[in-house]
């Protein structure tokens, strides 16, 4: 077990090691002359329209390509998604076949077609096939939009620059860029890299959420991105973070320091790699350090996770390992180790803690694909697995025995119905849709108890035209913790007395809780740029929620990875409103807030939840 505790970080490093040589090899891959020549652009004015992925340039435009072609002209327009560019106005094209002049040239890079309007004694129309400038196809019909400039009257540039290096289908790197807002330059950025490849692994990130995130990608290649994030969240306020991405077609690694400008820093490494077409590994490693600047840490904790997934024809096998070091004296040494027998401390000064656990868990589980029950439309899937939880400082005491290792195994299944249509089949506006699903799992532990979790949900929905949809759902979630013969020992009935208030209804609780939730939701979307969602819920739970009875679950400081699914004490009624609107083609704002109908003097959620996204 102790050996396993240090499995996760090496797994992350192994994934990284697999990735880096392949990433480098992809960088050096030769490209054919037709494939993707690098385009170097210089002009008096270069602008990038992020919402349309357009690079526009005007005044003394000069283009040089990596396959030896130089072009000059007055105006340039490149659609990075369509992968074609247009150069117009007193154009010259210099290639190995010599110099040619004309009114405009349009290069459809994906198709090996260059459309050219030369001006000889009179204008003409030439097409160069596969970059053969010596043998133009004269008079050949051209696509109707070969020389069309985009209409930019309703768009504003995202940034301005005086040059750019464009690797088609991969990335563009702007030189001497200035971030623009409402058409005006607002912040000089220097180099600015934008990736637009289809490799989604370059978009993986390792940062936690923030209210606002403005990203400056200052360098990159087809397989790497280096970025600084300017962020804001209610806890840290304004701060900056650094993130480094490495990716190829089979995997990725993302490293970040977040926030890099605060004393409480999270160093994250997220990796993923397809070892084969059916075997993948994913890792997550996080060190939380208290340090001034980048000096020696005064304290810290870390967590690592490895997930291996092997696909089979009708099921998948997963191995999950997770390990925490909340106070590992080998990593965060105690400078004053003489605080008494048995005491274990780590960290310095105000960051010195006695929180000495370093628990770990691993699970090996199988999950089936979806199968129909007999020949019915009802579908089910099952799962089974075994697991181990370990903490040298004791996980649980039961029957006067300390358990520092707990084995478990589980079996579970999900059954769900197809969508059932009710009402008028002739009028789609009067159709109702009924869905139902039930999930159940039993987990046995080596401590003599088992936990049953059952969740059933049914919903009825209806749409009123394309703009409004309404649904009603009812969910019952039951959790039972059963100690055979020891139920009264663990869940001894008692009446809590908190701040002088007694809660007699709790005395009936003996380890079995039921959460019933009735939800009414509506979404109104009058336009693609605006939506309003309302969700009203009524909770009827056991144990009955009464104000002040149940404490808030302790936050899992410092790792914000807590998943509370069985929290007791939900207010009986709540309603949540969510408005999302687009303020510009590249920015959307999402505002959310909940109301709790004066439960325990709680009306509104503490603050608006505001999210700005691109």
């Amino acid at each position, binding site marked *: 077990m102790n050996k396993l505790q240090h499995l996760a970080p090496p797994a992350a490093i192994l994934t990284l090691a697999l990735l880096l040589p392949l990433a480098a090899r992809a960088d050096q891959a030769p490209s054919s002359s037709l494939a993707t020549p690098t385009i170097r652009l210089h002009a008096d004015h270069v602008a990038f329209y992020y919402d349309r992925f357009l690079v526009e340039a*005007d005044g003394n435009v000069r283009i040089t390509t990596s396959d030896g072609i130089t072009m000059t002209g*007055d105006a340039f327009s490149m659609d990075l998604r369509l992968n074609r560019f247009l150069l117009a*106005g*007193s154009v010259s094209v210099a290639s190995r076949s010599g110099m040619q002049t004309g009114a405009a040239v349009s290069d459809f890079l994906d198709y090996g*077609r260059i459309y050219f309007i030369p001006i000889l*004694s009179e*204008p*003409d129309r030439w*097409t160069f096939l596969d970059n053969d400038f010596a043998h133009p196809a*004269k008079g050949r*019909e051209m696509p*109707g939009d070969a*020389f069309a400039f985009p209409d930019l*009257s309703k768009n504003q540039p995202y940034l301005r620059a005086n040059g750019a290096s464009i690797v088609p289908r991969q990335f563009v790197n702007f030189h001497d860029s200035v971030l623009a807002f409402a058409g005006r330059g607002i912040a000089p950025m220097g180099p600015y890299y934008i*990736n*637009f*490849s*289809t490799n*989604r692994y370059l978009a993986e990130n390792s940062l936690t959420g923030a209210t606002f995130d403005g990203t400056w990608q200052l360098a990159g290649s087809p397989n790497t991105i280096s970025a600084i994030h300017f962020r804001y969240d209610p806890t840290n306020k304004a701060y900056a973070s650094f993130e480094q991405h490495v990716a190829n077609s089979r995997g990725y690694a993302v490293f970040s320091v977040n926030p890099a400008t605060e004393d409480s820093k999270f160093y994250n490494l997220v990796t993923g790699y*397809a070892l084969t077409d059916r075997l993948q590994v994913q890792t997550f490693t996080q060190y939380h350090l208290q340090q001034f600047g980048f000096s020696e840490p005064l304290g810290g904790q870390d967590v690592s996770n490895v997930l291996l*997934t092997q696909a089979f024809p009708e099921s*998948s096998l*997963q191995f*999950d390992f997770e390990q*925490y070091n*909340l106070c590992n004296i080998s990593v965060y040494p105690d400078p004053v180790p003489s605080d008494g027998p048995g005491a274990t401390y780590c960290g310095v000064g105000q960051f010195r803690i006695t929180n000495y*656990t370093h628990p770990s*868990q691993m699970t090996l589980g*199988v999950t089936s694909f*979806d199968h129909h029950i007999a020949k019915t439309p009802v579908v089910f899937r099952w799962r089974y697995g075994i697991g181990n*939880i370990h*903490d040298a400082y004791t*996980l*649980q*005491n039961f029957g*006067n025995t300390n358990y520092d290792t*707990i084995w478990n195994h589980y079996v579970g299944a999900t059954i769900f119905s197809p969508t059932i249509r009710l009402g008028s089949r002739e009028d789609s506006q009067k159709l109702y*849709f009924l*869905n139902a699903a039930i*999930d159940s799992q039993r*987990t046995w*532990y080596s401590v003599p108890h088992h936990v049953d*979790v059952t969740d059933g949900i049914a*919903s*009825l929905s209806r749409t009123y035209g394309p703009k409004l*949809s309404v*649904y009603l759902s009812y969910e019952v979630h039951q*959790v039972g913790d059963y100690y055979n013969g020891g139920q009264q020992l663990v869940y001894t009935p*008692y009446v*809590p007395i*908190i701040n002088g208030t007694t809660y007699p209804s*709790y005395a009936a609780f003996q380890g079995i809780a039921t959460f019933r939730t009735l939800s009414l939701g509506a*979404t109104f979307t009058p336009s693609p740029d605006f*939506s309003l*969602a309302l969700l009203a819920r009524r909770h009827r739970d056991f144990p009955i929620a009464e104000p002040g009875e149940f*404490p808030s679950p302790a936050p*899992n400081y410092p790792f914000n990875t807590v998943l*509370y699914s*069985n929290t007791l004490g939900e207010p009986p009624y709540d309603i949540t409103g969510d408005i999302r609107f687009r303020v510009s083609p590249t920015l959307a704002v999402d505002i959310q807030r909940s109301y709790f109908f004066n439960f325990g003097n709680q009306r509104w959620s503490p603050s608006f939840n505001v999210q700005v*996204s691109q």
Partner: protein
Amino acid sequence: MGRLSRIVAMVLVGALLAADAPIRVTGQILDFEKGFVFFTTGDGFRVAPNVEILDLTDGHPSARTPHPRDYARVTFDAAGEVTEIELTANVLPNQMTYLPLQKFAVALSPPAPNPDLALPTPQPGSRGILNTFTGKLVLVGFTVEVPQETPLTDNVYIMTDQSGWNPQSIRMDRIDALHFRIVRRIASGTHFKYLYTRGSLATEERARDRLEATPRDFVVYDADTKTIPDVVYSWADQNGPGGFQVPTSIPTPFNPAPFPNLPPRPQPTHAPNGHH
């Protein structure tokens, strides 16, 4: 309305040509040099030696020469020479594609067919239907069924390669506990890859076999409507084996106690023999 005005303009151009009267049309300039003016249709027209270059807004002579991207209203005489160019920065409709004007376009080489632009041959089994792209707006509806574990308060988004895999590219509308939908008008010829998320890359979908999902390939052909029914089998943040409850308490995240916030006992009278 736009189509009607275009038809009226075409009729007027045809009538003016028939009457040998000066013709005025609008378009966007590609180049102006060596006695020719070029428009974004790729056509070049001969310019009269005494051509007048005016400002369209006030009708006064313009101080600048026509430049690529400028919009202009041009006047042709009966011989097809451009006698007047009125410049503006405002967007003007492109009337240079009208066939009657084509006879004025100057080109040394006779037109030759382009095999690249020929319609494709219908594929076997396509019943003669061509998958063509004309840029026509097609009503596309995406409907996705999500796993039962999807929290009722969560949103579902589509992320695409065309938006840099932004996990909140297109927000969908919930239509019931297990389904989300979005309807958009998308131009035929649009091609992108996409995946579903719950708003972040940590909550992106996983494939049926729980491996990373391969992005779906989406192409819009010419049609009136298109419906895309998709299924999400699991989410990345719920992909662990057994749905293990982690973490549930502090300082031991893996304490298998299923209830994280029981109320305190009034007066503990004996050593705990249950949970930490």
